């Protein structure tokens, strides 16, 4: 345990912990929106499209995360715009954007002279090497998300639940949708450093899926998902540190483990509840 606390003497570990806390908050809230609104596939598309921005950033020598932010926000707005059109097959468009972003990224990374060892950290993430800038951006984003949800929670909920009714009631549906998809894109990009492009979608969906086992209320799923995200990322962090394995993979591995434990726990609970009911009823009829 002492050993454990000593870790906090290191700056890199403090940064990693901050990243874990901030990403749990951002992913907890935005992930609940993604899961409830069933836009997991769209989010996957945005995630992979962002790789194009990373490649361009590498080639032209600016911060790849900034490139990814621009690329993913633009593709998110593009997808949102496309879904308004009735004559487009939405899922095909998303799949195209998904691989187009990856293709652009691969081309530019390939064209960049020298081997970029850092590239792996974008694909698989490393919470232990999260940069100060990334941390700062993640903090700003988390504050924005919290403020947006505190102010507009009901409107966001109504629009996500029943868009047709919301439009009939003249709620600002378009604005809410564009705003939310932008926040989704930014949340994804700023978590790429934490778990990597390939795994980031899990950070946005597994905690919610676990939370959903225990509650069906939007705001409770958010809170529970944040807590589960924290447990997952800190456990993954320690696994990663002690066994010297990639942090992203250990976080996701731990979260999936947690999911199965929760599912088994819930099933056992239901099993015992029903068994008690049956034995109670049997007891009653026996006494008659």
């Amino acid at each position: 345990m002492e050993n454990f606390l000593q870790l906090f003497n290191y700056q890199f570990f403090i940064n990693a912990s901050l990243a874990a806390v901030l990403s749990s908050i951002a992913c907890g809230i935005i992930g609940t929106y993604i899961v409830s609104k069933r836009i997991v596939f769209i989010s996957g598309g945005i995630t992979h499209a962002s790789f194009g921005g990373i490649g361009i950033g590498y080639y032209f020598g600016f911060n790849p995360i900034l490139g990814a932010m621009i690329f993913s926000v633009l593709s998110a707005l593009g997808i949102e715009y496309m879904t308004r059109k009735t004559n487009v097959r939405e899922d095909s468009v998303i799949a195209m954007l998904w691989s187009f972003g990856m293709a652009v990224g691969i081309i530019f990374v390939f064209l960049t002279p020298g081997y970029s060892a850092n590239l792996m950290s974008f694909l698989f993430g490393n919470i232990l090497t999260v940069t100060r800038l990334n941390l700062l951006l993640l903090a700003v984003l988390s504050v924005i998300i919290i403020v947006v949800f505190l102010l507009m929670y009901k409107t966001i909920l109504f629009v996500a639940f029943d868009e047709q009714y919301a439009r009939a009631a003249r709620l600002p549906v378009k604005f809410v949708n564009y705003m939310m998809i932008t926040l989704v894109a930014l949340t994804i990009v700023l978590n790429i450093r934490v778990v990597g492009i390939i795994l980031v979608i899990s950070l946005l969906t597994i905690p919610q899926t676990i939370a959903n086992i225990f509650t069906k209320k939007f705001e409770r799923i958010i809170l529970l998902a944040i807590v589960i995200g924290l447990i997952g990322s800190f456990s993954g962090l320690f696994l990663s540190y002690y066994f010297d394995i990639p942090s992203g993979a250990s976080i996701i591995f731990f979260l999936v483990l947690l999911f199965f434990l929760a599912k088994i726990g819930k099933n056992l609970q239901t099993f015992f509840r029903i068994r008690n009911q049956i034995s109670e009823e049997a007891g009653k009829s026996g006494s008659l």
Partner: protein
Amino acid sequence: MGKIIELQSVNAGYDDEIILHHVNLTINDGDFIGVIGPNGGGKTTLVKIIIGLIKPLSGKVIYHNNNFSDNNKRLIGYLPQISNTDRVFPISVLNVVLSGLAKPRKLVNYFNKEQVEKAHEILAEMGIGHLAKKNIGELSGGQMQRVFLCRAIVARPRLLILDEPNSFVDNKFENDLYNKLNELNQQMAILMVSHDLGTITYYVKTIACVNRELHYHESNTISQEQLSEYNCPIQIIAHGDIPHTVLKKHN
């Protein structure tokens, strides 16, 4: 009493396909209009035009100003087709009803005590007060339809629009629903889209037949001839005898 909404020679459709031709319709306070017609005839398009979800290609939709000073009142209450809703979305019954009181064009929506009470009252009025805290996924089809009706009327609209309210519900609820609508008709005009001709003619005051064009009948009787004319794949389940009044032919 007075005009609520007027459609003046409205053409409506999507892209290059015109679905509704030259529709004229005036909805007045106290009306109870049944909208019937074959699938693809434009019933839902008509509803969307009235609500303002789509703009007419030509012609005019006039909303006669509602001078509601009360923040909790609206011009139109809307009950969409239940099949379009996501039944596992994590939202409580109370929140669904409260969305009927959300302010138009406002991003920030908080609800005061009075509004929350209003929502509870309307749920109790529909006999589902005990479900307020439930998630919508835990409800039966009939209960869900009641919740959506609550959402539509909680703001006491001047006009209530119902799109196929009788789909996915049991017979008992259907009767309750129509009785409730009769009661509501004392306070608001109603426009109801339905497949079920037999029932609709029993309750409504007037009928609008929609099949690319709109024909308005100032009566609630409908003849066998009219049915065949519209080619409606409809089974008539009537409450009592169907009056065999023959309306004048269109035009």
